[in-house]
């Protein structure tokens, strides 16, 4: 049985709302493109927004409701801090729930990460030590979120720049265990797997092979940057600031071959380009989804095709 996008405990109140996200290509909607998307109604299968950008009321929420009338929408959160040793921020969870009730998204997702400790929000998706204690904490919080929202969520694998000495569980096993124990789905961020694999020297294909196909509910694709560090080392930074790189497209093709088509999102958050660039990237993903194969020709003329993963320890 595959994980069903948009499965909910209660039936949707209207047949046109709460529709599942189709296994097609979508784009991340940012404020810059609200007007374009509303006026042009571009041919894209679905849209994803950051949950935290639409809390409270006023015109951002009104725009999102207008967009929602034309497209399936996925809510992607960055602030629940599923890995916090502390309790979840109840006020924040209440705001997420309110938005979910109002927008009736096809998918709700969060990250395998933490960002809150001692009532400080550290404004980044921080890596967890992958221990039995952290696994218990994450599962407890996912249970609580799913009970509150009355629906399963997807949990996304993070991109990371450090590992802890006391980690004992490989990330793919940790994520698989969270899905198995809580019933949540997995948001498989292909770019994040690639970035972390390069930064920490593991095999990205083996990571994919270890994930449970039935739990995969969505793919993310994005660009990353390379940063040269003093001493000549290079680290990949998940900046969502460019087109999807060829190595990530190749890994995406592997993921499609392994898991089959799933909703696939083009994410772009730094130096956000015109809407047409995002639509162009989404069209590439859409073709791969439709044919099950990657048409790499369009990408091979680029400078960074050779992107060997040779700098990890």
């Amino acid at each position, binding site marked *: 049985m595959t994980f069903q996008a948009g499965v909910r405990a209660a039936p949707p109140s209207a047949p046109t709302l709460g529709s599942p996200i189709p296994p097609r290509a979508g784009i991340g909607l940012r404020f810059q493109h609200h007007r374009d998307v509303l006026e042009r109604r571009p041919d894209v299968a679905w849209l994803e927004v950051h949950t935290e950008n639409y809390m409270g009321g006023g015109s951002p929420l009104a725009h999102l409701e207008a967009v929602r009338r034309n497209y399936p929408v996925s809510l992607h959160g960055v602030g629940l801090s599923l890995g916090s040793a502390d309790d979840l921020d109840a006020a924040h969870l209440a705001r997420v729930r309110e938005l979910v009730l109002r927008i009736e998204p096809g998918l709700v997702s969060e990250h395998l990460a933490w960002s809150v400790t001692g009532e400080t929000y*550290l404004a980044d998706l921080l890596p967890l030590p992958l221990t039995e204690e952290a696994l218990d904490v994450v599962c407890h919080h996912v249970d609580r979120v799913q009970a509150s929202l009355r629906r399963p969520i997807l949990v996304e694998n993070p991109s990371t720049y450090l590992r802890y000495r006391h980690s004992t569980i490989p990330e793919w096993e940790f994520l698989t265990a969270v899905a198995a124990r809580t019933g949540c789905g997995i948001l498989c961020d292909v770019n994040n797997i690639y970035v972390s694999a390069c930064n920490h020297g593991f095999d990205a294909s083996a990571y994919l092979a270890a994930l449970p196909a039935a739990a995969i509910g969505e793919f993310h694709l994005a660009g990353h940057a390379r940063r040269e560090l003093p001493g000549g080392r290079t680290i990949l930074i998940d900046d969502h600031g460019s087109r999807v790189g060829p190595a990530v497209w190749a890994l995406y093709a592997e993921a499609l071959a392994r898991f089959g088509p799933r909703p696939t999102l083009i994410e772009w958050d730094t130096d956000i380009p015109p809407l047409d660039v995002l639509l162009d990237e989404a069209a590439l993903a859409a073709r791969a989804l439709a044919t099950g194969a990657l048409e790499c020709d369009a990408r091979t003329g680029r400078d960074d095709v050779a992107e060997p993963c040779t700098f990890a320890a």
Partner: protein
Amino acid sequence: MTTATPSLRDMQQAMRRSLLGHDDSIAAFVVDDGVAATERLGIYRNTFVGVATRALRLNHPAVARLVGDDFFDATAQAYIVRHPPTSAWLDQYGDAYADFLAQWQAVASLPYLADVARLEWAVGRALHAPDAAAVDAATLASLAALAPEAPANVRFDAHPALQLVRTATPADAIWRAVLDRDDAALTSIDLAAGQRWLLVERSNEGVDVVPMHEAGWNFTLALCAGETLQQALDAVAEAPDFDATTLLAQHFAAGRFTGFRTVAPLPIAQPDEDCP
């Protein structure tokens, strides 16, 4: 921190201290495989400070333009380590920023800066407040039906987007001129013009800042604080030429109240009892 395996909570508190620049004891628990742990931690610190700074700038665009990007960033860093975000709702980040600027020595030569920040904080609150329906005509009619003795005991529910700000300088004129990039208006502002009593509310596509008279502002503040109409009237009893009826009508016409409640059983024998 010792080198024994830390609990998740201890580890997260150590990471907090690292990102806030207090100490890097967390580095002892980070794998150091050719890239130093402090280098890896620096990537996260840069993101944290960068995201918090961007939130502070988005919430205070006029302050940012008044001081310039580099100065704004440096001041933001000082603020962030003293008052890091407490919630992932970053539209609401910066509640202590105006007070911080008011005592921050580096901006002491810009006495209006804290006032502009105070106004921008109110603007942000108005922008991101929950939606709420204003009192409709039928409900207003039911209020009128309570007259004449009941209004003394009526409390109003202010719209969540309604904000009241008092500034020592003409911060609203500065704010408008800066955001409009209107240098002529900016140079003509009289910084010694004195206090401003401002009402901030949401409009169709943004926020309006409405200057008020002192008495009307105080009256409205009392109502917004949940005081009864009689108490609000008492608060401005000394003000000459204050017309509460007209102002209330303006408030209702502008949708500034979402409801009202009577606070004592009717009828009230002596309305003055509530008002010592």
